[in-house]
């Protein structure tokens, strides 16, 4: 397992290098790193920065310079905030990972529950209801869902019941002056996590249902039934274990996409995570944040892919990691 992991990581390096060069080139071709300076009253500012950043060199040379600095921890300085990029991305990543953790945790549990129920009671009224709801969940865009949840679970209860404050908050992850994991944190976290969870559950539950149905149609399940194995045991010991492997793969791949994909959710709930950082950086044309940001997301995709492979092997002994 360890050898496999190390080998996979080693294989990932060329992918990362190629991806980083493409990202570097694409971002540099799209944005002008000196756009802000071109409005400066200092006529020498553009020239000095051009020399400092090596912008007068060829694209491969610029890339090598940047990559050399990147791997040594010098991720550059944001043209938007004048702050160091590494702590900016680190802080945003920490926030996004919190959101992801809770969202993926709840979504996995709920999606598995719904998927198992729907598969076990295929074509029942409950299955139809849950199937219908999952389609509704898939169809609801996060920006719409988020606002509806805010209205229904925060604004409306406060107005309806004359509360001094809403039962759930939706600006940031803490109230002013609060920090850490406490009730205030969870009151802030609830709505963004619900927004995220509903979208994930909708698609993951469909996937679980399909995987479970495939597993339940397997010969080994028929054999188990013929042998009189209890239904519950068939479901959870035989079918679920086989259905889990593809489910875990989907969860891992979707999680990778969430690292940089929570733009809308973070924007609505004013959460300073990776998505919001991306948005503010792209609006400001902040290339020195955008390039490492994309690279971090690319790394996340590779890491989550690796986790998916490892998890798959752990769940399915037929898969050998070589």
């Amino acid at each position: 397992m360890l050898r496999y992991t190390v080998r996979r990581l080693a294989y990932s390096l060329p992918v990362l290098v190629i991806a980083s060069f493409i990202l570097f080139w694409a971002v540099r071709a799209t944005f002008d790193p000196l756009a802000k300076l071109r409005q400066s009253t200092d006529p020498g500012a553009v020239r000095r920065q051009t020399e400092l950043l090596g912008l007068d060199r060829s694209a491969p040379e610029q890339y090598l310079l940047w990559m050399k600095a990147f791997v040594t921890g010098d991720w550059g300085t944001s043209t938007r905030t004048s702050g160091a990029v590494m702590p900016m991305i680190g802080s945003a990543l920490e926030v996004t990972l919190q959101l992801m953790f809770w969202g993926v945790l709840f979504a996995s549990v709920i999606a598995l529950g719904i998927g198992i129920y729907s598969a076990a009671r295929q074509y029942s009224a409950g299955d139809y209801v849950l199937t219908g709801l999952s389609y509704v969940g898939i169809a609801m865009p996060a920006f719409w869902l988020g606002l509806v949840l805010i209205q229904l679970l925060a604004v409306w209860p406060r107005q309806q019941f004359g509360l001094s404050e809403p039962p759930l908050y939706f600006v940031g992850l803490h109230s002013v002056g609060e920090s850490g994991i406490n009730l205030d944190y969870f009151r802030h976290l609830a709505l963004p996590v619900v927004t995220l969870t509903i979208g994930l559950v909708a698609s993951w539950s469909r996937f679980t249902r399909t995987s479970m149905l495939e597993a339940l149609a397997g010969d080994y399940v028929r054999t188990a039934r013929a042998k009189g194995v209890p239904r519950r045991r068939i479901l959870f010991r035989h079918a679920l274990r086989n259905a889990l492997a593809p489910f875990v793969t989907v969860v891992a791949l979707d999680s990778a996409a969430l690292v940089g994909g929570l733009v809308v959710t973070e924007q609505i709930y004013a959460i300073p995570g990776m998505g919001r950082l991306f948005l503010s950086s792209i609006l400001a044309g902040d290339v020195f944040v955008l390039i490492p940001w994309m690279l971090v997301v690319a790394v996340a995709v590779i890491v989550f892919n690796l986790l998916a492979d490892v998890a798959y092997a752990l769940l399915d002994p037929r898969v050998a990691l070589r």
Partner: protein
Amino acid sequence: MIHERSDRIPSRAGKLRTPVGSALAALAVLVATGCTSGAPALAPGTAIRDVPVKQGGSLVIGAEQEPDCADWISSCAGSIWGTYLMQAQTIPQVFTVAPQGKDWVPVASDLMASTPTTAMVDGRQTITYRLNPAAVWSDGQPITSADLKYTALQIRDGKDIFTQTGYDLIDSISTPDARTAVLTLKSPYANWRQLFGAEYGVLPAHLLEGKDRNALMKNGYTFSGGPWRIASWVRGTSVTLVPNERYWGRKPHLDKVTFQFTTDTAAEFQAFASGQLDALYPTPQLDVLAQINSLGGSADMQVETRTGNLQALWMNNSAFPFDSVAVRQALAHSIDRGAIVRKLFGSLGVTAPAQSFLSPLVSAFAAEDFAVYQRDLAKVQQIMTAAGWAKNGDGIWSKDGRAAQFTIVSLAGNQSRELTEQILQSQLRQAGFKMTIKNTSAANLFGKVAPAGDFQLGLWTLTDTFPEPTLDATFGSTAIPSDANGNSGINFIRAQVPGLDSVLGRVGTEVDETSRLQASRQAERLIADTVPSLPLGAVPNILLTGKKVGGPIGINPVQGPFWNLAEWGLAK
């Protein structure tokens, strides 16, 4: 006067919306209107609303934008929200702007012992500042003439300065005593009140001199010479202010004010409706106006129409077809500016188009010369025909084989601009002009397109940042971006109106107010005659406050809605 090239300007009039913002807004209106009815206590064009307050407590105010940095004389000064949240609360200024009758006028702040005076000495303009002996920084050190000197020289001689206008004229600054500073200018500067009073204030020399000012200030600073000091700035989340205990003037009623960054407009309104935010200062976009109506009676609204924001159509005088005076005049007669203005901001009290390139903030210097340009298609026909144009088979004016078709550029995603463009497109088509729309990002428009003159027609906002006329920055031929001015000029339209430079020069240097006013009116006439561009209308500002907020509440067109935050409090 500046174009909305940085967020200092677009934040009020043309801020680039987030991609999701517009879509969210429509939904929010639908959702919110289902639960509330009526409209806020609306007071368009109101003066200050005064509500008695009690001592203590805290407020949380929504901030649509987070400043990138807090070094207020570098490019950070371009952040209007930075000014509202931190600069105006912590950095003392020589002149402030206060309401006087129907106008906002510059008045000496409580930093000064007396109103600064100017005089011509040996043919040179001098300005004398006398500081209030009670004025101290938050560390107890007195605010002295050395601070004025340090600040002035930093701006005059420094690199990466937001604007050096006025400060570049400083010849010397003497400090006869700790409370007196005398500034001598190389040439007369009529807008001398802007010094230490518009974009900039006064910085503490004893803390910054000889050090890297930008490094010390960019992430926030602990010193203050205003009623508040910065308690914390959590990037991406909030800025918290607490009272500066050593402030010599009127001390804040509140114990704490937090500005929460809520960049999504729809969510911001819901946070306000749910009581998480106590006040909002939204950009007056179309979606915002709809959302305001959904708030019901739970909010009070102040609308300030006497702003420094003026939306205009910018014609590139060096590009076809606007290199022709006749075409520019014809275009001015093709547009019903009043209809556009009423459509955009009629509900907020802006019902008449601007007839001058001086915004309402500078109305004392403005004339009404553009009033001659009313929509009159017969007049268009007459002007174009006289200039040798004839309509082609498509009904478009054409001359020498070239049709009068052009492209307009503005900010992508800005709903009010897009609506304006659509109205213009329709009106111009009826007049025989074909206009296509090609919008772009703020960074591209003001960083590349406009400075390079790579446009035909533009739609954006011009902002006056102080009640003084500065048309020379926009229409003076020396302000055309060129190597000579380091490409920093903002005469993006390449206007070269005969005789205008000298008149604008008089506006900028004439210290006598009567002569200056005459020169300003003359400049306006010259501009209107050749129509280098066309003013559309003022962009109002809106402030929403919850019922728990008290104090004298009103929008200062220069210093923003929180200019008197020290006087705010919890309503009694």
